[in-house]
């Protein structure tokens, strides 16, 4: 059975002398021992012949993806920053050990950001998108300067972890397929 399988494989691979190919296959480390698994692959190959798809058909399959509609964008306003105002009564950061907390508000959602300095020049960001409508989401969150620095998805309760970001001024965007909330954020102590 082993020789039969090697012969089947050699017939498939060989462009010239099948015997030369069989000899090479006999020495191959991955083809030692029982070759039942290879026999099954060769059987599958006999059943499934997969010709190339015509280019125009392939293009139509890709084009099935719906065109994105216009995205409604809201600008969020900064209403609290612990670095300048200290903690407001009743305002708690998402994570108690954060270095600073900022809170942005927009018509459809609030965004709470916690910044934890990792070094003098880098801050680790995390936060939560707090939507007013239960039908909104799930949100993706990205932070962008001249180019996108980091992005992630929120969990079931809108929490996210963006990871370490070099200090500077960025646009933080929380978005779904239909709308986006943008906030200008100063990352740093």
């Amino acid at each position, binding site marked *: 059975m082993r020789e039969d399988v090697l012969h089947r494989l050699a017939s*498939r*691979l060989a*462009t010239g002398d099948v015997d030369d190919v069989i000899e090479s296959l006999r020495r*191959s*480390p*991955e*083809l030692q021992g029982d070759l039942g*698994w*290879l026999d*099954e*692959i*060769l*059987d*599958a*190959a006999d*059943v*499934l*012949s*997969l*010709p*190339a*798809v*015509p280019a125009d*058909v*392939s293009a*139509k*399959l*890709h084009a*099935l*993806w719906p065109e*994105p509609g216009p995205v409604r964008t809201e600008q969020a306003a900064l209403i609290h920053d612990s670095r300048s105002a200290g903690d407001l009564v009743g305002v708690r950061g998402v994570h108690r050990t954060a270095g600073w907390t900022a809170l942005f508000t927009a018509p459809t959602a609030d965004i709470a950001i916690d910044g934890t300095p990792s070094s003098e020049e880098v801050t680790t960001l995390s936060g939560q998108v707090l939507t007013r409508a239960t039908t909104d989401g*799930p949100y*993706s969150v990205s932070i962008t300067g001249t180019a996108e620095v*980091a*992005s*992630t*998805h929120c969990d079931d309760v809108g929490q*996210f*972890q*963006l*990871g370490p970001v070099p200090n500077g001024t960025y646009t933080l965007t929380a978005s779904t*397929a239909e709308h986006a909330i943008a906030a200008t954020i100063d990352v740093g102590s």
Partner: protein
Amino acid sequence: MYAPRVGDGGETNGGLDPSNALLLRGCRRGEQPAWAQLVRRYERLVYAIALRECTDADLACDVTQETFAELLRSIDSIRDPERLGHWLATVCRRTAWRRRGATTCRPLELTDEHIGVTEDFTDDLTRALEIYDTVQSLGEPCRSLIIGLFFDPAQPDYASIAVQLGRPPGSIGPLRGRCLARLRALLVEVSADA
């Protein structure tokens, strides 16, 4: 190439290639590159099944498009992402039967009972689809290499495969060895889980 986002669970094959589950999740989030990669993974399988089921090449192209359109409509309800090939083959055959029925031309070996059956596969095709889905989970470049070596009716030689993969021709033999070893391990794992 679809790149899963940070914090997305890391379901990749060797760190670079997203799993079917991850691609479906990306599609649900509205990420077009995830859809593009699903199409690239399965378009040849669906087209091949459609050609088998349809005597007319144009009809096979229509059936292929309708199958992927059905996948897009059903994105939220796919329950077993790692058997996506089997799901697509089922939908493709059902669509082909329906379309062939509309043209009043039915193959003699199928009865009216078969047209209503959702998973009327021969054992050989069922096993072939399982192996094909396992090949999909290999990741690149092994996926393209195995499909080129075993499933492409054009039977490309090593030089052609090397060009397709962007590698030196002399590297294909050793790559074949590594890819077959990985596929063997995955098939053993799949058999153990079954």
